[in-house]
């Protein structure tokens, strides 16, 4: 893997982020509605609205607005929420933690379930265990997040009362409680993810099991465990790694429904709120952060490819 390759990828990533920034900005401009009405209320006079626009810079030409925002971002300044007066970067710092924790936890759960199950099911292809796991994966794939969430809340929070439905506590206050409050939302996300991961990895393992080197490994008298773990798993992981990366980026701001149902102060609800109140500084900052995480994770996935597969490492 050459430095040149890395440089190209970083360049591409920055280009993508720039495009995302422009798109968000443009999308913000075509949204009907005006933050001024939210901030100033129904009784705002035209003069007050004009003054508000002037103060927030909304009366300047779009290109100029974009440029000043963009240069601000380059200097680490994401602007200020016109609605709450909070610095967007501060808000994002607060909001990123629950989102990141949630996604990390969900991915961890999903992988912990999906990986062993997929390997085992592929090894026992066509047997009862495989069929049962396949059926379960289909069901989970088809069950919408909100249905899972509602069910989990009903069972674990309301009926059994063993886990809290809401009440996120920051990590630095009480890590155990953070974990407990994130458990249900993470499981909600994880169930769907696990089904996807299971299917992809199972297909990958089935594919790998057909490879000559697996036959050769069996011809060496290796135990099924050795064959599966040492020879089969790693070459089968590439599509899964791609997917984990994609989903990581996807969920970091995409778990809107789950965040809302579990009252988690994450990036998704923050962006959703910004869309609904037309708080553009917030919207732009959040989308850019989410896209940044996505791009970064996928860059990492790309690098991980090289680690997992020397063919890729040496082809670059």
């Amino acid at each position: 893997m050459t430095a040149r390759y890395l440089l190209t990828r970083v360049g591409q990533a920055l280009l993508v982020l720039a495009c995302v920034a422009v798109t968000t900005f443009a999308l913000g401009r075509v949204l009907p509605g005006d933050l001024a009405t939210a901030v100033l209320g129904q009784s705002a006079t035209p003069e007050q609205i004009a003054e508000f626009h002037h103060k927030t810079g909304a009366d300047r030409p779009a290109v100029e607005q974009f440029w000043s925002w963009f240069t601000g971002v380059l200097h680490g300044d994401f602007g200020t929420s016109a609605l709450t007066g909070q610095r967007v970067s501060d808000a994002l710092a607060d909001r990123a933690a629950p989102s990141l924790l949630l996604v990390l936890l969900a991915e961890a759960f999903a992988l912990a379930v999906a990986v062993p199950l997929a390997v085992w099911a592929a090894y026992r292809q066509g047997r009862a265990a495989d069929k049962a796991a396949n059926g379960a994966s289909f069901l989970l794939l088809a069950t919408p997040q909100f249905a899972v969430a509602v069910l989990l809340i009903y069972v674990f929070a309301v009926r059994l009362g063993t886990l809290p439905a809401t009440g996120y506590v920051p990590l630095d206050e009480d890590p155990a409680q953070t974990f407990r409050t994130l458990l249900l939302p993470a499981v909600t996300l994880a169930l769907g993810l696990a089904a996807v991961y299971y299917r992809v990895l199972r297909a990958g393992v089935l594919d790998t099991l057909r490879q000559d080197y697996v036959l050769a490994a069996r011809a060496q008298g290796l135990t099924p465990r050795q064959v599966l773990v040492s020879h089969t798993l790693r070459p089968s992981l590439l599509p899964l790694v791609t997917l984990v990366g994609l989903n990581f980026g996807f969920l970091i701001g995409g778990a809107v429904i789950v965040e809302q149902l579990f009252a988690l102060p994450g990036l998704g609800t923050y962006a959703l709120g910004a869309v609904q109140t037309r708080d553009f500084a917030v919207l732009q900052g959040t989308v850019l952060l989410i896209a940044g995480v996505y791009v970064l994770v996928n860059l990492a996935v790309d690098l991980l490819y090289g680690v997992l597969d020397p063919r890729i490492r040496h082809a670059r």
Partner: protein
Amino acid sequence: MTTADLPVSAPPGTGAVGRPLLEVRGLRVRYRSGGRPFEAVAGLDLTLHQGETLGLVGESGCGKSSVARAVARLEPDVSGAIVFDGQDVARTGGRALKAYRRRVGMVFQDPIASLNPRRTVRDIIATPLELAGGHDSTAIAARVGELADLVGLHPSLLDRHPHEMSGGQCQRVSIARALACVPDLLLCDEVVSALDVSIQAQVVNLLMDIREQQRLAMLFISHDLAVVRQLSDRVAVMYLGTLCEDAPVDELFARPAHPYTRALLASVPGNPTPDTALLTGDLPSPLTPPSGCRFRTRCPLARDTCAEIPPTPKQIRPDHHVACHFPIDATP
């Protein structure tokens, strides 16, 4: 409409005399590997006369397939001259390229992968005729029938898909397709390598027959020296993108002058040669070719000069060229 309306090749020349049908001069084919460019073919000269078969042999990775693809204009990064029938086609486009493509047919190594799995044999053979244009469906159907007959395909096979046929049958389809527009030159890239011996013999025989019937020139690429010997008039030996030796077939097999040619012959199973002629080691990477003579790292006769000066082909006997500083003197 009859098949008489179909394009017909120019009358074949008179063999080795006169203007060559194909002349490749200083051919270079470049690829990129992980951003790094390298030359798969590094300055190659070849001459092929009308009705003649030139065998091109060498180990895998020596660039012989790249030569065929370059001649077929399938390689994007090519320099040098490819003179076909007096015209340099290396950089032509448009009508001239179209006309050239009709006069050159190509057959590939993998018989099944060479055919679109979603199309019937009939469609596949008809494709070049449709592309050439100017034929109605009856003329095309008639020509497809003729071609199937020519390559020994039973008409009942015409409505099958490639995966429903054997490798030998698929290769016949490929040949029929390559012959559809009555080319002057047939490029055969390892066409029998993937076939079993008994089927290989059938296809070799077929190629010998149509070469006679159609008065075709052929560039026959193979790593199998015995097959090349069977089919070729002249043989060129390649090593790591360069030409080692080029001679009439009997001359080459009887009196190989390049140490690499000799080693190749010695390695053929069942060929009685002392072990000392066998090569050690492997082909160097084309990304970092050795300086001077590219064969020197494995050559039993290599000396200091070989590392410094790349050898140029020189004629050691009539029509026998060797690119070696120290050719084996095998004059009887």
